[in-house]
C-alpha cells in the first residue's frame, strides 16, 4: 500500500463523510473520545481491505462501526461500568448545567439500554435507516430489529418518565418539603 496515497484518499473520504460517521460512533459509544477511538479502529480495518473494497467504502465502514461497538460492549465490561456512571442528572431548573443534562436527556438515557437495542435505536432514529437496512448493517433479522426497536423505545419512555424533573421534585423527602 502506498502510504501517501492511502492516507490522502482516506482524508478526502473523511472530509466528505467523516463528521456523520463520527457522530454515529459518538452515539454508539456515549462520548466524543470513545467515538473517535471507535472510528479510528474502523478506519484501521478499512485500511486492511483498502485494495479489495470496490467503490464507496462508507458501507463497509459503517458496518464495522456497529460490529466493533458491539464487540467492545461484549468484551470491555469496564465500558459498561463507565456507561452506568453516565446516568442523567435529575436537574434543578436554576442550574444551567442541569438544564444541559435535561436537554439531551434521551441520549443519556440511551446509554442505559442493552447494546443491541441501543444500536438499533441509533440505526433507526439517527441514521434513519429502514428496518431492512438496519438489519443488514447489524447482521441480524428484520424481526430482531423490529422487536429491539420497540423494546428500546418502550424502555426509553419508562426511563424518561421516571427521571422527569417534576417527578424528581415529587420524590423529595417529605421532611424537606415541609421546611
Amino acid at each position: 500500500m502506498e502510504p501517501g496515497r492511502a492516507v490522502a484518499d482516506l482524508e478526502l473520504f473523511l472530509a466528505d463523510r467523516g463528521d456523520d460517521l463520527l457522530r454515529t460512533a459518538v452515539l454508539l459509544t456515549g462520548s466524543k473520545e470513545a467515538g473517535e477511538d471507535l472510528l479510528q479502529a474502523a478506519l484501521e480495518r478499512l485500511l486492511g481491505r483498502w485494495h479489495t473494497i470496490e467503490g464507496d467504502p462508507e458501507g463497509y465502514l459503517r458496518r464495522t462501526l456497529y460490529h466493533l461497538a458491539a464487540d467492545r460492549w461484549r468484551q470491555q465490561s469496564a465500558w459498561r461500568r463507565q456507561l452506568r456512571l453516565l446516568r442523567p442528572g435529575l436537574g434543578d431548573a436554576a442550574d444551567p448545567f442541569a438544564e444541559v443534562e435535561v436537554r439531551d436527556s434521551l441520549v443519556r438515557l440511551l446509554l442505559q439500554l442493552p447494546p443491541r437495542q441501543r444500536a438499533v435505536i441509533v440505526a433507526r432514529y439517527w441514521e434513519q435507516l429502514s428496518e431492512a437496512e438496519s438489519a443488514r448493517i447489524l447482521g441480524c433479522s428484520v424481526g430482531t430489529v423490529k422487536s429491539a426497536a420497540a423494546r428500546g423505545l418502550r424502555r426509553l419512555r419508562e426511563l424518561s418518565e421516571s427521571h422527569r424533573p417534576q417527578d424528581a421534585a415529587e420524590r423529595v423527602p417529605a421532611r424537606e418539603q415541609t421546611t
Partner: protein
Amino acid sequence: MNIELADQLRSDMERFTRDIYVPRGLALRAYRHYQRRRTTLRVAVAAWTATALAVGAVAIAGAAGAFGSAPAPGSAPAPPAQTTAYVLKRVESALAPANVDNLISLNRLVFPPGLTLEPVVGGLSGDATTRGGTTIGREGSPWSVAYVLHWAYQGAQKYSAYGPSGQHVFDMRVSVAKGSVTETVVIYTDRTWWTATKTAAGPRSAGCAANSIQLSAGPGNGWPAFIRSQLACGAYTVVGHQVINGIDAIKITGDRGQPTLLVNPATYLPIQLTIGPLRNYFQWLPPTSAHLAELKEAVPTGFRQVPPPTPN
C-alpha cells in the same frame, strides 16, 4: 406516542452531536497505528517460522539421549517475582518424583504436517523441513507421523506412533533394568520388529534450549524431569491464563522461545506443552491394570524379527 418520542430522540441526538467534527489527522493516525499492528504481526510470524526451523530436528531420546544443549545465557529481565515464583514452585513440586512416580503420564504429541519420526537405537529421530512457512517432510516416507501416544510409568515407556490417516506406524517400548535399557520396536507398516539393549546413561539435564526435547528413560525422568529442568533455567514467566478443555489453565512461557506450558490451577500438573509447532497434551492417570497393560509390548503373531537399524 412513539412518534413523539422518536422525534424527541432524534432532536436530542442532533443536539448531542452538534459540535462533533472529525479531528484533523485521524486518517494518518489510523494509518500509523495500522502499520504498527502489521509490523508486529509480521514479527510474530517470522518468529514462528524461525522456531519451526529450529524444531526441524526434534529428537525424543531414550537412555542414550539425542541432543545435548547448553543453558541459555541469563539475560532475561526479572519476572514479576511473586506470582511467577509461587506458580513455578508449585509446578516443580507437583512434578517432583514423590508426587508423580505413582501416576501414569499419558501424552498425546501432535506434530505439524509432514514430520517424519523414525525409531532408531537410542530413541526416536524426527525430521521436518520448512519451506515458505509450511512444514514438509520427506515425500512418501513410511515414517510420516501425525501424532504419538506416549505412556510412561516408573521407568517404563511406550511410544505408539500413528500416521496422517490414523494408521498405526510403530510402537517403541523402552524399559530400564539392571543398568541397561532395552528398546523393543514393532513396525506395523512392514510387519517387522527389532530389539536392542544398551547400557543406561546416567541422568542428564535436558538443558534450556528451546528447540529440542530430550527425555530420558528410567524412574524420575520423562516429561516431569524435562519440564522441571526447563523451569529451573529461570527464563520462565507466568503470562496469564488460557482456557483449555474447560479449565482456566495458568500459562507459563519462556522469553527465548522455550516451550509454553499450561498447568492446571488446582493440581499445578501440566495440561499442555507447546514447542514451536508441536503440541503435547497431558493426562495423569492412576496405575490401574488397564492403564498398566498399555505399557506392555506384545509382538503380533506373524511379524518378522529384523536386526536393529545401524546408527547413521
